[in-house]
């Protein structure tokens, strides 16, 4: 699992997300992307690590900070960029934007922008998958539901942990604990800041991993997904991570010290993986240079795709409020 080829692949994926997000920030200042834009920079190890444990038939429910999840899941950068440009070639036809990326092909059930709002949907998807698997006599698919430390304070988190455990549903509750619910620090919003301990109240197995270490995330996610897939019900995996950028492009970051951010940047997951790859003395500079080239090209192509994309005709405004096909 930790062979050099695999590590390089993880590195390439994280670089793609990092550079994609940097470009998004740039395009936001150029007003090509509008609305709210929440960047994943600093948290790349979580999305990339988790996706290693998932299969193509598994389902994903995500948050409004989901570009990294979507890219790691294999959605095309062009369809994501076009979505943020508001073009109809976007993955949600320009109806969703940055916070609402959807893709049927990869079972990506969206960025949900109401904190905690995706959890009940994930429980339902898992229920459907479990019932269908029971009927077929097969192992259930995993529904991986991403949410942040903020969501753990929502009632929906507790309702859903209980329901999923009660019905032994195949949900991987994937908590990206980046220590801030927008600007509210973990200890300002939680009486119990060790979030994984909350799982015990619902008899849900839980683990905590270093979310800045992609291999630790991958390892933890594989254990978690295996447990879920084997029919033992839900699993709670907390990945301790940190976002290097502001909450959104509107955030002046008054609530945290620059020193704290700099401290976390010394644990940059990409740099950490580089060190790991080079630990045996074999340099990775040339690989990185190659990846940077590939990734830059991919991102340039995604921007070109978005730029040449078309605006949905305004006569289509009322489409997709109700289905155009019968059930």
């Amino acid at each position: 699992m930790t062979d050099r080829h695999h590590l390089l692949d993880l590195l390439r994926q994280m670089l793609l997300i990092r550079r994609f997000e940097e470009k998004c920030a740039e395009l936001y200042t150029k007003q090509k992307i509008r609305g709210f834009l929440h960047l994943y920079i600093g948290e790349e190890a979580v999305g990339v690590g988790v996706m290693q444990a998932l299969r193509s038939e598994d389902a994903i429910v995500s948050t409004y900070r989901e570009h990294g999840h979507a890219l790691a899941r294999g959605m095309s950068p062009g369809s994501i960029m076009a979505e943020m440009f508001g073009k109809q070639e976007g993955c949600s036809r320009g109806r969703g934007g940055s916070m609402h990326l959807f893709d049927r092909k990869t079972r990506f059930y969206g960025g949900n922008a109401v904190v905690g709002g995706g959890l009940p949907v994930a429980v339902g998807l898992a229920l459907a998958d479990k019932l269908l698997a029971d009927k077929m006599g097969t192992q259930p698919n995993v529904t991986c539901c991403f949410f942040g430390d903020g969501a753990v304070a929502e009632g929906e988190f507790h309702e859903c942990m209980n329901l999923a455990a009660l019905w032994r549903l195949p949900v991987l509750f994937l908590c990206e604990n980046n220590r801030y619910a927008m600007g509210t620090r973990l200890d300002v919003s939680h009486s119990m800041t060790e979030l994984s301990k909350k799982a015990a109240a619902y008899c849900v197995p839980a683990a905590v991993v270093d979310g800045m270490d992609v291999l630790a995330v991958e390892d933890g996610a594989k254990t978690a997904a295996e447990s879920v897939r084997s029919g033992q019900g839900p699993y709670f995996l907390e990945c301790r991570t940190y976002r290097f950028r502001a909450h959104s492009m509107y955030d002046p970051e008054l609530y945290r010290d620059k020193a704290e951010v700099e401290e976390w940047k010394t644990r940059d997951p990409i740099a950490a993986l580089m060190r790991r790859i080079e630990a045996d003395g074999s340099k990775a500079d040339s690989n990185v240079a190659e990846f940077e080239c590939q990734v830059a090209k991919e991102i340039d192509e995604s921007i070109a795709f978005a730029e040449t994309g078309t605006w949905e005709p305004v006569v289509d405004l009322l489409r997709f409020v109700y289905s155009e096909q019968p059930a």
Partner: protein
Amino acid sequence: MTYRDAIREAIRKALRADDRVFLMGEDVGRYGGCYAVSKGLLAEFGPERIRDTPLSESAFVGAGIGAALGGLRPIVEIMTVNFSLLALDQILNNAATLLHMSGGQFNVPVVIRMATGGGRQLAAQHSHSLEGWYAHIPGIKVLTPATLEDAHGMLLAALQDPDPVLIFENALLYNMEGGLPSDAGPVEIAHASVRRAGRDVSVITYGNSLWKALEAARGLAEKGIEAEVVDLRPLRPLDDRTLVDSVSRTHRALVVDEGWRSGGISAEISARLTEQAFYELDAPVQRLCGAEVPMPYAAHMEQVSIPQVATITAAVEGMVRPHG
């Protein structure tokens, strides 16, 4: 057979016909449903298909949405409309929104049923008529069955719909007796229905108020006033055509709604008639609505809080001079 039995029969038919269908909600199984709608179904279909849920409206309504996304056909029962507010995030931000937000990729064929309405001395947290609020939301359909045939057939039709359908069952109707044709099946859910023809005034209503309006109309007929009674059936989409046609015959309209007046569905109907049938009207559209108070407990206070046969009669008499 009662209205309750008609719903149960529809659920039973759906469970038999389609193994993707299941029912879930608080006390739908072992208890038999808080209004006994699902009584006996657990024994017949088992706990996988008649699922008791914890008291977690947001989780189990959202789970219904997710299960619908995942290929099932859930019927979610919420005990009463006031409790549905705990799941409003899921209904509005997910059920009504996902198809559009995903650019048409993910439709949500979930059916959500709940009891609504006052008249049972259950006070201010069990008695409101909030279906008009739900009718405000694009992306869902809102049905208000008043008859046994609709209680049965609307549920079957809702299960065939690709999009989220909310069904509001006025709790006073559960004991109403009636019959169903032996070949009863899905009914169409896009149109209002003229339940009584008349020339003098259109009384436009839905749910339990339909029966009060019909009783009022019988009394008015003895006084020489012929009221046409229109049952709205769907509150979303509203069937403008049937309403306009009726008013074009009678030239007067009274909207009767248990819900609150301000910003309610009655205001919407009045506005549409004014927009689309202004020159057909011989008098301003009138409204008879629930009093603007949280529902009181005391029987005499509750009774005057919602439209009654006598107040409907008086409202019509205020609008129409008897013939002859």
